[in-house]
């Protein structure tokens, strides 16, 4: 009893509480970093296939990361994935809207030479890994064909397909991320799969 009282006294000291709070913050930060590091590549691909522009996709992913940490970092880690993809989906939709408006404005302005904006960047051109040339060629073709077909799906079908198939969310998590019912997710996913199989069945 004496030992308990002594320990209880130590654990309730301000120094101990501050130390424990710092430890919890550090663990939370570490868990968030692991989560973000685990989803960032797939999130970028999802944004890239939706926006068809690398810079916009990177901006959308960064924005989703910022908002998740800022607004939902204190939530349970099991909630992060659907929340993150919900934020990303909203960001992508907003960007597409802005792009539509910008497109209308730019249509009134004289066209610029796109080559003027492109500088050679050796780091950008460096591949992250190198399979053998034949396999690489085969994969290049499969990736190109699939990504084109996915990018051309209707937005909701593409979203359902990428979240279910690529990100691996279950129906409930996908519904939460898409802001719709589980029935709608199943319908969108089924239609996406049908379209892709009809188009790519022989190729992939």
């Amino acid at each position, binding site marked *: 009893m004496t030992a308990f009282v002594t320990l209880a006294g130590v654990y309730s000291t301000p120094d101990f509480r501050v130390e424990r709070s710092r430890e919890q*913050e550090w663990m*939370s*930060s570490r868990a*968030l*970093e692991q989560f*973000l*590091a685990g989803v*960032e*590549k*797939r999130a*970028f*691909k999802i944004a890239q296939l939706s926006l068809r522009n*690398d810079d916009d996709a*990177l901006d959308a*992913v*960064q924005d989703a*990361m*910022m908002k*998740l*940490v*800022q607004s939902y*970092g204190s939530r349970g880690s099991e909630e992060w994935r659907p929340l993150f993809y919900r934020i990303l989906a909203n960001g992508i939709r907003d960007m597409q809207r802005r792009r539509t408006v910008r497109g209308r404005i730019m249509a009134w302005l004289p066209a610029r030479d796109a080559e003027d904006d492109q500088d050679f*960047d050796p*780091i*950008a*051109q*460096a*591949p*992250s*890994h190198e399979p053998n040339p034949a396999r690489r060629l085969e*994969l290049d073709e*499969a*990736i190109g064909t*699939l*990504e084109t077909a*996915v990018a051309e799906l209707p937005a909701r079908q593409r979203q359902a397909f*990428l979240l279910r*198939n*690529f990100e691996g969310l279950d129906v409930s998590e996908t519904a939460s991320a898409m802001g719709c019912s589980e029935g709608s997710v199943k319908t969108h996913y089924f239609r996406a*799969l049908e379209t*892709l*199989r009809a188009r*790519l*069945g022989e190729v*992939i």
Partner: protein
Amino acid sequence: MSQESQDGAFEKRTRAVLEESAARLDGRTLSRLTQARHAALEQLQRPARARWWAWMPAGAAAAVAVLAVSLWMGRPAVETPSPMEDLEFLTDADAPEFVTDGEELEFYEWAAGEMES
């Protein structure tokens, strides 16, 4: 092969192709994703630093108030009697005795002249 297992196989192949595509992201994209992640996580450190800044507006307002009060208190005291006080003084039968006293009046005129010179 049943339709269901065909569906499953197709889903697996598409997932594998997309994962391969994600694994092939170039160095620049990977670097920017890492930067984005670090920028997002930096927000967790900011509240501790922000606490100091959060008091800045209140601190600045308090400093301005203290300065204003010290300037007000430190200024030379100049009493400017109101017109009502002047009127009360002139109509008071007891107080301004020196006004009716010829000698005293001369003294005050001399004193006023000395002060002006």
